């Protein structure tokens, strides 16, 4: 196991920005990678990397030959953002995940993107972990562009997640790390889970178990290594069964239902109230029978703010 710098750039006054990765090298088996912290306010993936490192270090102590391939962890891609509580890249005021594939020359966002692309390209599987944002809590899920679903869905089914959300190509952003990797032949799964600026340990352990199982299946880990049990089977969502609940008025959203529970058509999911008065401004009710898979975490809403997503049952389990 070694931690090394894979990207560095000179800053205006004395300092250099350095971005690091940790590599666990075994034999000549497949190389896989985990990416996290592309957005500086998303911390779930950082903890996933820690848990993976802890599991791998322990496993290698007891079974020194348990690793057949290599595992690369990129836990903190947006180093400056993470260290300064900023979602985007500080100074450049850009979303790093809109800067791919980047270029070797040019400003920091382009160079960092290009360095990450170069580092990841050729991996057998990359998992890019996102933690929603500070507004919404998400159930552990993988989001897949339908352009690449043949390759990615079979892998995603075994990742111990609760949901696979297929997106039509028209709604996909082309400048993300995942799109750039998938377009250039390196399979990349985007995991969304939890909420910004927080860590949800049970979600992190759930994903760790899923990745270890997939890596064992791929031959990154030796067949005799025992990995945690898989306990989740994903539901499938797409444009046809996902319903968005946007606020009809501004105020404070107070949830009445719990995240990731079955809800019925017309059931009260929450209310919007005002701190200036005692009545209810707006009721939020489920449009369908289904499951509440996204729920607002940050209470203040504007007209139009997303409060929840409900997935209607198609009776389909992956």
């Amino acid at each position, binding site marked *: 196991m070694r931690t090394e710098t894979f990207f560095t750039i000179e800053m*205006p006054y*004395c300092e250099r920005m350095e971005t690091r990765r940790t590599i666990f090298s075994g034999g000549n088996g497949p190389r896989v990678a985990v990416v996290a912290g592309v957005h500086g306010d998303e911390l779930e993936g950082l903890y996933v990397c820690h848990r993976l490192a802890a599991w791998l270090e322990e496993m290698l102590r007891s079974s020194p030959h348990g690793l057949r391939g290599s595992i690369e962890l990129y836990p903190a891609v947006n180093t400056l953002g993470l260290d300064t509580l900023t979602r985007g890249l500080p100074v450049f005021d850009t979303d790093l995940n809109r800067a791919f594939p980047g270029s070797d*020359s040019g400003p920091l966002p382009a160079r960092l993107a290009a360095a990450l692309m170069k580092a990841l390209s050729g991996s057998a599987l990359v998992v890019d972990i996102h933690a929603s944002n500070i507004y919404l809590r998400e159930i552990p899920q993988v989001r897949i562009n339908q352009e690449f679903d043949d390759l990615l869905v079979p892998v995603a089914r075994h990742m111990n997640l609760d949901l696979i959300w297929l997106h039509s190509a028209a709604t996909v952003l082309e*400048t993300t790390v995942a799109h750039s990797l998938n377009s250039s032949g390196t399979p990349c799964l985007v995991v969304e889970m939890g909420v910004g600026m927080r860590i949800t340990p049970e979600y992190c352990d759930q994903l760790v178990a899923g990745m270890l199982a997939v890596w064992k299946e791929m031959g990154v880990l030796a067949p005799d290594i025992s990995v945690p049990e898989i306990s989740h089977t994903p539901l499938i969502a797409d444009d046809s069964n996902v319903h968005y609940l946007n606020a009809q008025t501004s105020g404070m959203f107070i949830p009445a239902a719990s995240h990731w529970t079955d809800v019925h058509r017309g059931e009260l999911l929450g209310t919007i109230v005002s701190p200036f008065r005692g009545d209810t401004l707006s009721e939020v009710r489920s449009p369908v029978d289904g499951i509440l898979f996204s729920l607002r975490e940050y209470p203040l809403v*504007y*007209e139009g703010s997303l409060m929840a997503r409900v997935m209607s049952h198609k009776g389909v389990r992956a």
Partner: protein
Amino acid sequence: MIRDLLCMTAPVREGFDIPCHEIGPKSSHPAAALVAGLHGDEINGIFILSRLADFLNSVEAGKYPELRLVRRVLIIPAVNVLGVNLRTRTWPFDKTDINRMFPGSTTGETTQRIAYALLESTKRAEYRIDIHTASTDFEEIPQVRLHGPSDTERETARMFGLPAIMERSLSPVFTTTLMASWKVWPGESFVLRVGQAGIVQLDHCQRVFRSMVQFLGRVGVLEGVQIAAEDEEVCFFNKASAFRVLAEKAGTFVSDSHVGRWVRAGQELGYIYDSFGGKVIEKVVAPVAGLLTGIRRHPLLFEGDLILRVNRKS
């Protein structure tokens, strides 16, 4: 006439709206729709359009007897109203870029609703103009930006009489911008880029104000405008004519060069100092002979930052 493009509520303060000017004869849609302040820190455009609204209202009031506004003009000086007041580029609540929310929707996020209302009110205009600046770090020569233009738009772009017309291809990065949404509709669309964000640059603003008046005169919206002989040549630049200088080293960049000047190849345009040690570590020179169309204004340089751009005359 002042009208609200959109009225919305807010969590605890009172509601907010996006006001616009509608000036000239009534009509089902404006002949020209002029937009600025999609980014709240791009003040040059907001200043230009508020001044233009005042001027056209004065024309309507008869203060310029030789001029007559014969077609309707819609002017929205600032779309990101709260962003202007709070000095932020993006929508202050969720930090989204309104110019990445088009075509928008009536039921989606706040910024999508703003985008939808803006597009609805402007898309049927024959001439649509969206005024921007560069960032707070960089200054651009007042220019017309064309993104995948039609031949007609290339010709019409000359009517602004601005010193530079820059043509770019329509990259996927721009598919959710106002410009990309406008292009779906008949009519002509232009982006003007004027100076840098965060300040009012009076020279640039006066120049673009005059060019907007000339434009409205030439396309027949405002009658009686004395069409000025072009005081300088309008240059058409494609991407291949642009030569950029990137910072080979980090440090403090200082320069007294001005955009809009013709420079010689090798001409010294600024210096990079070691920010700690104080020594000059690099002389920044023009990479080719041409027009200095953009230069960095924030002194602190990361390695790789864009310092300046010179466009070679084709």
